[in-house]
């Protein structure tokens, strides 16, 4: 189980990272707010991969401990943790030369949900329900 969970975590993390990079690009081109110096593409991918791998470990542990209710608890926790992490963009202090810091949360908040979205979307391909 852990092997499949980890594979799902890595794949969904990378895909979420790529979606984040694409979203940042669209955001920059449509609003003119460029935060690529604050959060470069590599950081977006690394953070998403971290989220994906953390989810994989959490899923495997919960699945082993709670078996039948493990997935429900995991889904709730993953969503809850994603919501809690939204505090970070609001509290972030950007370099003083960064233009329009008020547009920064708008760029990164959706990214905080991408790992969970990717996980929930791809899960049936990696882990089948009993």
């Amino acid at each position, binding site marked *: 189980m852990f092997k499949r969970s980890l594979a799902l975590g890595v794949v969904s993390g990378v895909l979420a990272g790529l979606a984040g990079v694409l979203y940042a690009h669209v955001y920059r081109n449509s609003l003119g707010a460029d935060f690529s110096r604050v959060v470069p593409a590599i950081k977006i991918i690394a953070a998403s991969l971290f989220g994906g791998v953390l989810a994989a470990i959490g899923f495997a542990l919960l699945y082993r401990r709670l078996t039948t209710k493990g997935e429900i608890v995991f889904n709730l926790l993953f969503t809850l943790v994603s919501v809690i992490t939204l505090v970070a963009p609001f*509290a*972030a*202090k950007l370099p*003083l030369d960064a233009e329009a*810091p*008020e547009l920064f949360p708008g760029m990164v908040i959706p990214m905080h949900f991408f790992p969970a979205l990717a996980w929930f979307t791809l899960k049936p391909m990696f882990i089948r329900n009993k």
Partner: protein
Amino acid sequence: MNKLFYPLAAILLLAGSAFTYLTTPGWQVATGYSIAFSSDDASGIFRDFRGSLSFDDSDPAAGKFDVAVEVASINTGNAMQNRHAKSDEWFDAVKYPQIHFASKSISRTASGYQVSGELEMHGSKKPVTIPFVFKKTAQGGLFTGSFNLNRNDYGIGKPGGGVGEQVRIDISVPVTKI
């Protein structure tokens, strides 16, 4: 009389144009300036700074500064802090849109110069003295200076409240000749 008009006009024009070179040189604020503030808990910059600066390092007493920053241009690096700083709890940018400094005297000191004048902020006008250094550069010149002020003197924020009361102001203003 008519004969004298043109020679007199020429002399006046000549004297006037020569006098322009003798008056204290004026400087124009160039890009790349920095008006930064820092305290124990908050730091940031004001992005919008403008004004008139006339200063001659050989005759500092003849100089005059009249400058202002737009309160709404405050940037702490955090959107929520910016909004908070502009609110009526702090700077009240709507009611007091500018921080204004007008010099009264400029004098030479051992380490550079100092300008004394009145700083108007948040509806309060207080005398301040700002030590500064002026360096000539290839593009014109550079004014740099630092000073401390107490935000309570201007009624900005509540006394204490977990935010430092002493605020350090660091100014760096590159200028070009007008």
